């Protein structure tokens, strides 16, 4: 790919295309936090994390951050995923599978609907 910039529009285009380069360095509009304590990993949190990243990539979403957190003490509910989106507080999902994760991205992040069947906790 040659990136010759010949006009101002070319510059803007490259800027658009490059935002992902640094977008992971800001919090983004929403964030997904995957519990990755020993118990979480044992319960399949790694696969859930990968599913989240793949789904975001597939949908070309670049302003959502994905981070990990340690054990929060509800090990029987692992894998645990928190989604923090503006106006919807912090929603904790339990026993999440990779397929659930894809649904969470589609419903919660994209459409703004909480996936009620998986919710195990809410906070503001």
């Amino acid at each position, binding site marked *: 790919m040659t990136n010759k910039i010949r006009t101002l529009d*070319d510059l803007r285009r490259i800027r658009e295309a490059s935002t992902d380069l*640094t977008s992971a360095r800001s919090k983004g509009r929403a964030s997904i936090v995957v519990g990755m304590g020993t118990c979480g990993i044992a319960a399949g949190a790694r696969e859930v994390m990968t599913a989240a990243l793949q789904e975001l990539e597939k949908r070309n979403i670049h302003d959502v951050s994905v981070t990990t957190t340690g054990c929060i003490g509800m090990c029987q509910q692992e894998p645990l995923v928190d989604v923090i989106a503006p106006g919807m507080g912090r929603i904790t999902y339990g026993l999440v599978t990779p397929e659930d994760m894809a649904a969470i991205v589609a419903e919660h992040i994209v459409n703004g609907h909480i996936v009620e069947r998986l919710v195990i906790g809410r906070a503001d």
Partner: protein
Amino acid sequence: MPIFRSHILVCGGTGCSSSGSQDVQKVLRDEIAKRNLDKEILVVQTGCHGMCEMGPIVVVYPEGTFYCRVQASDVPELVGEHIVKGRPVQRLLYSVPEDASRVPFYKDIPFYGKQHRIALKNCGYINPDNIEEYIARGGYEGLGKALTSMTSAQVIDEVKASGLRGRGGGGFPTGLKWSFAAKSPGPKKYVICNADEGDPGAFMDRSLIEGDPHAIIEGMMIGAYAIGADEGYVYCRAEYPLAIERLKTAIAQAEEFGLMGTDVLGTGFNFTLHIKEGAGAFVCGEETALMGSIEGRRGMPMPRPPFPAVHGLWGKPTNINNVETWANVAQIIVNGGAWYASMGTEKSKGTKVFALTGKVKHTGLVEVPMGITLREIIFDIGGGILNDRKFKAVQIGGPSGGCLTEEHLDLPVSYESLTGAGAIMGSGGMVVMDEDNCMVDVAKFFLEFTQRESCGKCVPCREGTKHMLLLLEKITSGRGTMEDISTLEQLAEMVREMSLCGLGQTAPNPVITTLRYFRDEYEAHIRDKRCPSHACTALLRYEIDPETCKRCGLCAKNCPVSCISGSRQEPYRIDQEKCIRCGTCFQKCPFGAIGKN
């Protein structure tokens, strides 16, 4: 493009590199690959974060967790705990010296809290070797705007409206300077970036180039468009190999992307940029000497006028600005002059980067709005004096600057206020001193510097600084007379008034200010043959307290000139005639029985 869920930024600046950041980076990449995380975690090398003292610095995003003094051996734990399990490694977090509490995030660290980063916006945040990261942060928008929607006169007006003044020392209004070069007739003009940074104790220009080279290039191109130049030079000290490397890469990338060269953005604007390595002479930072050096001559200043704007490099109209000045330009064009002018004081607008060093807890680069007080910089941002000793003075402006004291701590910092107090803004070096620093010794230190760097072209500077230095050496070795002080004052006045260039004209400043604010220290050296700070070795006396001495003999064993005698029966004592005052015995004594006087 794959999405990385986390970016790990490793500082690759000179400071962190010398504390081992290259090893950290290598081990980190290996560890990430070993754990198959290389599809989701990106390791990025950045420029300086300004907190070199705490290096190597590693920042983990998106959380913005700030780790300091990370060693290669810490990496497996950092990856295993933080990256995999999301648990920050407590022991590597920044700790607040006051209460030893750990601060996880960049934004909460007091050192960064009061800063306002414009010139340093991208430093430590982007990978300087990747032009796309610069563009992603709005880079080259300023150039685009200037070239496509502004006339050169409008560009100059915008810079004038911003109130930006030269950051290289003089503080000359940048927009006005550009308008001179713009008015000079001729098809061939040059722009120059002064990156000689000769002021010892200042390193903002190095950090700016290392951390965000494209910002300087973009600024220069906007300036070139404004004055009608098509060629530029960056004159960089040879002591800054990393900065030169980064700049070379940046220029190559800008050319590859078509942002430099011919017909930029289809507007007919042409520009090429060269790098010139300096060869180690302080006076080459002076603009006329600098141009002489680019032309391959001895770098000696020339009388002005003619000014460079009229008769500059190879006789052509030339505009020369400092690195930090250039670094502000693009953002002024993007956000407007009024935006920049909304910060700062009436006559000193915007922000200034200071290199805070010496006896403060947090040394480093700080960018603050003009008008902030010295107290805020030294105590709030810098965390106060090292080992909680007493603040004595702060030297501002390097060899041309002066020492300010306690009474100036609440002075709002601006070009005018600093000059009024006897210092200068200079390039923004701030060296903090405590009770252990002798002000006569500091004055001598600076004169040694200017005397060595005087180019020898004009007599007042060449001879005057030499004799001032001799007098100071006489005083610090205990042979001074009261008369020497008045001779020193006369010489200072003479050198200041009669020298050809800024080097000589400002060389006496450190002597003048220390005489003004610390005259009693000079008098103590002369009258009492005593250095109140115990810094001038010739006036020191080491003595062993016979009561406290446990007769272990460690001092005598370590004395390089065998001037200590004693035995198990008899307390040890120092033969003052033979003693060379090296201080070895003082350091070795396990019982604190040796006193310094």
